[in-house]
């Protein structure tokens, strides 16, 4: 029986954000935006969804008088990501 792919992660932009965050300690919103080639509006919606799922921590502070958002993956996020990759492998193994 196939495991359902986590609907929160099975979306291109959210998966891209999680893949970036899994490989670094923390990243600013501008870095994620640049690397994922996304628009600020779309990205902030997706970041909010990941935050609500408890997959990432979002810190908002001021840097040189400008608002600055930093994102960091949580333990729940790492677990979910690992599960997602495991499920992907299952799909791919069957297809071989």
């Amino acid at each position, binding site marked *: 029986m196939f495991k359902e792919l986590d609907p929160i992660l099975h979306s291109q932009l959210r998966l*891209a954000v999680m893949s970036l965050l899994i490989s670094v*300690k923390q*990243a*600013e919103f*501008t870095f994620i935006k640049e*690397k994922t080639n996304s628009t600020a509006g779309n990205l902030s919606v997706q970041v909010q969804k990941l935050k609500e799922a408890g997959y990432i921590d979002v810190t908002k502070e001021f*840097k040189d008088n400008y608002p600055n958002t930093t994102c960091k993956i949580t333990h729940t996020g790492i677990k979910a990501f690992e599960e997602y990759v495991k499920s992907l492998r299952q799909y791919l193994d069957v297809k071989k």
Partner: protein
Amino acid sequence: MENDNDFSPQQSLQLIESMINRAKDKFAEDGLMYLVWGWLVFICSLLQFLLLHVFKYPYHYIVWFATIPTFIFQYFYYSKKSKHQIVKTYTDYIIGFVWITFAVVMILLGFLIGFLTTGEYYSHIIHILLAVYGMPVFLTGVIVRFKPLIIGGIACWVLCIISTFIKNYDYQFLFIPVAMLIAWIIPGYKLRSRYKHINV
């Protein structure tokens, strides 16, 4: 990037792989502090050798006071840099702790040598400095996969062994500028050119 849920498991894996690679392609170390410290210690140790060996000046160690403004410069340099750093990788994080460990070990050893050894305790300093100093240089090289630093770290250990055969304390001082050249100044210039090449 589009935001649809209609993509295959293969595409998912490709996306994950490409994002992980994109996160890695920024190399944050510009080598500046390697060059500042490398040249500073290089010049200070040579000056100290001249004061000690040629001029027989008893307070030859005063040259090391030049490290105080350098520490202050380093503090401001890194706090400014961290403000502009939009991503913090695990590599940066681990390397920071490698150097903190080195600083702690050096300070502890400084105290221990003074307390525990008798006689000409200062004559051990150069060997111990070279032995311990090889560690952060070697580890940084391994972590960032940068050969000049790995070679530099090993060179410090080789110099440490050779230095034990030099019985004249004054000449032992000359091992420090050599170590600086191999373990800091040369890798520093190479890091700088790599940084400029990657972050054009």
